[in-house]
């Protein structure tokens, strides 16, 4: 029973990371209809920036987080302006192009930083554990959970309480009409993509003390994050949060009860079945046409 609770806690902290990655993916998909297969590489880049900040400047990830967000958001902005925005009416081609970008980013890191694993330390402020009953909770993991909830709240506020959010929602509803009212859809899209990418970067940085940093670390994560987006449905932040918790916990349980491979297969089958039978989780709400 204790083992189960501890596992559940570990699952919750993974779910928090998934939530941040999934939020970025869901926002990009929900607003532009772009399935961003380079999202995992944004996560990976975030992790590498965190590693570089620690290795070369001695900054802990807590100090680096704002900068990492900005850097990866900028990378996302470049990708959007350079590639994605040319492909808006060609969803299949966007998949291919972002896949290509993922490969290029991975290969760049492999060539210039090296294929070997890198390690980043837990911030000294968050070392140690909090023990409640039999559950040992590392302070860092607790921080990740709280941070993810804060990101969720901030995103919600951004979407519903700011001028930017209003513009974005207008563009999603009808791009042409929004442009007639002076909203520059291109700019809104670029900012949205950048925000999603920035979140991925932050998630990557938060991951560094938990897993080793490698050029291909994003690939696995993005599959799970994609599952989160499918389950949660687009346009629902709460849905994404619930789905992230579900996937995180399920994966934790699976890896305890079965082996990892079977867990992966289960995730993949879940994706296939959900797309096939619950496609409405994927599309914006159906309206009469």
């Amino acid at each position, binding site marked *: 029973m204790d083992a189960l609770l501890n596992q559940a806690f570990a699952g919750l902290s993974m779910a928090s990371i998934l939530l941040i990655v999934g939020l970025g993916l869901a926002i990009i998909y929900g607003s532009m209809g772009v399935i961003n297969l380079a999202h995992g590489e944004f996560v990976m880049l975030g992790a590498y920036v965190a590693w570089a900040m620690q290795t070369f400047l001695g900054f802990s990830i807590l100090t680096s987080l704002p900068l990492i967000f900005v850097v990866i958001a900028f990378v996302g902005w470049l990708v959007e302006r350079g590639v994605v925005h040319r*492909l808006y009416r060609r*969803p299949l081609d966007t998949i*291919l192009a972002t896949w290509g970008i993922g490969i*290029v980013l991975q290969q760049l890191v492999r*060539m210039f930083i090296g294929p070997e694993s890198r390690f980043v330390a837990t911030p000294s402020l968050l070392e140690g554990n909090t023990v409640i009953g039999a559950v040992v909770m590392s302070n860092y993991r607790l921080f990740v959970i709280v941070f993810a909830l804060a990101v969720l709240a901030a995103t919600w506020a951004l979407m519903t309480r700011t001028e930017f959010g209003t513009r974005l929602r207008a563009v999603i509803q009808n791009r042409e009409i929004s442009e007639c009212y002076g909203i520059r859809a291109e700019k809104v899209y670029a900012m949205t993509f950048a925000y999603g990418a920035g979140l991925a970067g932050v998630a990557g940085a938060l991951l560094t003390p938990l897993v080793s940093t490698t050029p291909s670390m994003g690939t696995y994560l993005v599959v799970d994050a*994609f599952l989160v987006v499918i389950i949660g449905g687009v346009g629902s932040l709460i849905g994404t949060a619930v789905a992230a918790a579900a996937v995180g916990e399920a994966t934790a349980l699976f890896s305890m009860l079965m082996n990892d*491979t079977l867990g992966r297969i289960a995730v*993949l089958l879940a994706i296939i079945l959900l797309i096939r039978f619950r496609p409405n989780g994927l599309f914006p709400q159906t309206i009469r046409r």
Partner: protein
Amino acid sequence: MNRTNKYDFLGYIAFAVIILLGVPFLLGFDGFELNTFARYLALAMVAMALALSWGTAGLLNLGQAATFGIGSYVMAMHLKLAASTNNPGGMPDFMGWTNVESLPWFWQPFHSLTVTLLAGLLLPAAVAGLMAAFMFRGRITGVFVAIITLAFMVALQLVFIEEQRFTGGQNGLTGLAPLSLPGWTVDTYSLSFYYLVAGCLIVALLLGMLVVRSKVGLVLRAIREDASRVRYFGYDVASYETFVFCLSAAIAGWAGMLYTLVLEFASPTYMSVSFSLAIVIWCAVGGRESLVWAAVGAILVNLAEGRLSDVFVEGWLLILGLVFILFVIFLPRGLYGLALAMVDRLRGAPRTDATLPVKEG
């Protein structure tokens, strides 16, 4: 039907002549070079199989490598059994190491050459057919076809790696016997083997072109544009889509069998994400709308890889990725679109825009 038909047919003849006469001559009938080129031809075949579903019907199968892999394992199982006749129980060596008691039932039929050849075509077709019926009866289209096929392939690859006792796991199937056809033991470094592979490619292309030129091809192109409109004319869209997936898978399986012969082993990397992406890249470079050009794309990219990857060991993947992105953005119709535009300019006809995207459903 339309104007491009004539060119397609001329292109096909030219391609066949080059492959059958030009290439062996240029390579100086050198066994090693011929073997390398035979490998490119097998890859050209799987690229052409992808173009069949992607270019014609707009159904992007990101799991094309799965059916290719099944074909290659089928052939490898036959050759492995042939190489294991002296082992206890006629079992492949790796089964002995992992304490498998006796040859599993699903290995048994592959003693027979006929069963193997049929299975190499029909098994991939059946698997793809089930997937296709599952998706297309539910009217899954566009990017979701891509995601489902990709997820399926990754799951399949995981199974092949995990079930090491039966599949050789990460190592795949190695130590294979040469293929014995009635009256001919295949030497993979010979001219006749090259002609076997080249002949298969040319027949497969002809088969594909016949389908594309028939009304099925026309209906598939209509489906790419507006599947629901096609339904109101009485066509059962799902069965057309399923058919093209099956055909594409059978050809991919066929290519996989040849690939195992060329490389003399089968490996789970044949059904990996990166291999599947490579197939997509070849198609995109050559031109997804034309079967011949997709094949040409595969040959050109692999030729370039063969020459360049020695020079830029690390950077090859980077170059390939960049080239791919540039093609998707600026030349979505690939070299085929470029060729069409050039022909039109020479004829002074209204220009075909090579940079215009291919319509998606």
